[in-house]
């Protein structure tokens, strides 16, 4: 029975990936602080469920700082598929939910992995009556000291209240390029010690923001025990060449933890 369920989920994921060729939004849970819940050997790679929570503070010089938190979970359906979901709240009166999946396309004997992530994000701004939907497709490659991602995301925003007068109140913003380049000091799966890395990217753990708003960050985690780790990330948004990304000029920090659940397989 369990196998049939897994097969159904795997088929659904394949359809998602195949039809929409979409996103990383869910995959971000997989990527949080370089964790490895997918079927790669190591302390975090053998349990079926992982729960990740973190609080964040994002400060931009030109706008108010935004604080909030996110809770996400992923389920390793099979050796090559993982599904996940999450919710986020931000103090700028923004709530969000996401759903997605990750397929491992290739695993080498040295632990290198090629992955395809597909995700969907819904965000709602209650006080502004605005909603938006984002899908993304991301290809990832992970090795011992590096983690690289490249993808595209599409966003469709809808001002539902504003449809009643004039235009439709909807905007489609297609094909934003997203990327992440991470370098890690140690093997991602190293237990009982700190592991640190650096990241250059234009999207955060939960949400794909607009293209070109890239940042640099230092990130790390500490493995408390067999199934628990603490995560941290601190980063800066520079103004960008020609001030192009200056709207996000500022800094941010994420602090959180993740926990593995279920029997090891």
């Amino acid at each position: 029975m369990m196998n049939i369920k897994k097969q159904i989920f795997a088929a659904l994921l394949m359809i998602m990936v195949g039809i929409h060729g979409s996103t990383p939004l869910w995959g971000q849970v997989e990527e949080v602080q370089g964790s490895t819940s997918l079927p790669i050997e190591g302390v975090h790679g053998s349990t079926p469920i992982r729960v990740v929570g973190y609080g964040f503070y994002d400060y931009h010089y030109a706008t108010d700082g935004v604080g909030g938190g996110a809770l996400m979970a992923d389920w390793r359906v099979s050796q090559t598929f993982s599904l996940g979901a999450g919710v986020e709240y931000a103090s700028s009166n923004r709530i969000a939910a996401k759903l997605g999946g990750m397929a491992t396309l290739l695993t080498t004997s040295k632990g290198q992995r090629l992955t395809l992530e597909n995700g969907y994000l819904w965000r709602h701004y209650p006080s502004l009556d605005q909603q938006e939907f984002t899908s993304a497709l991301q290809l990832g490659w992970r090795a011992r000291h590096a983690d690289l991602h490249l993808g595209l995301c599409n966003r469709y925003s809808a001002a539902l209240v504003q449809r009643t007068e004039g235009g439709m109140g909807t905007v489609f913003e297609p094909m934003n390029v997203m990327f992440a380049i991470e370098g890690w000091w140690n093997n991602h799966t190293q237990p009982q010690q700190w592991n640190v890395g650096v990241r250059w990217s234009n999207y955060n753990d939960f949400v794909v923001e607009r293209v070109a708003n890239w940042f640099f960050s230092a990130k790390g985690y500490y493995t408390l025990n067999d199934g628990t780790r603490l995560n941290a990330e601190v980063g800066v948004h520079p103004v960008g060449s020609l001030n192009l990304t200056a709207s996000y000029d500022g800094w941010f920090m994420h602090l959180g933890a993740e926990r593995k659940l279920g029997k090891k397989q």
Partner: protein
Amino acid sequence: MKAKTLILSAIALALCSCNRLDVKGMFWSSGSHTEERVEDWLAWDKEHGENIVAGVPERYRVYVCSDIHLEGDATRVATVVERENADPLARFSIVLGDIANESGERPFRLMDSVARLGGDTCFVILGNHDIYFDCEQYYRQYFHTSTYTVTVQTVGGAKDLFVFLDSGNATHGKRQLAWLREVLQHRSDYRHVVVGTHTCLFRTSYNYGTTPAANLPEDEYYELLRLMDESDVSLVVMGHFHHKEEHQIGGVPYVMTDNLNEEKDTPSYLVVTLGDDVDYKYEEL
């Protein structure tokens, strides 16, 4: 190994000394922030009083262009201003930023001389290209402000309001948004309200030439859409992405002007007509 080091060093040196690509901005923040500039602009406005264009007929025109990126001469933007001067229904022209394309005073001096052509006024705001490197000092020297209003008084007693914003940092910032909310609270005093800002609010189409160009943070983007809708703004004009684009969200039309720089094969500008309604059309240069 030595050759590679030399090549890398040469590339790094070339990039750092390039006066068109602001390499250091990719790694750390320099230059002014929106908040600081807006404080300066509003202080200048307060000291020099409100811009009023009086004695205007009930139906009149305004010429709008953007992204002129002056490198050679200023023929293209001068043509727009001269056509505006020659149009008996037109009252002033607007340049929505990106006067410069590289460092130096020259583009601003040229733009200033173009703005003085003929008898009509040319209102200018800044774009992201006008504040990196050492450009901002020249913008300040020649144009003084980028957050201001222009009130048009018609002979029949109607009033139209033009609101100009500084979005050179791809954001309007807290102070400027507060000022904008305050200004739009008086919406009922005016027949029409037109808002002009450099950075396009939307990122809706491909344009490989400006692919890295950013726009507003989403919280601010949605707040602005809401504010424009609630305030029944008649028209929002923007630039930045170097092509024509039109949207209608709620009752508000958002129009992006084309660019006028010399590399553009088919440059155009916008002619806005204000009467009982607000209409606009693109005109080829």
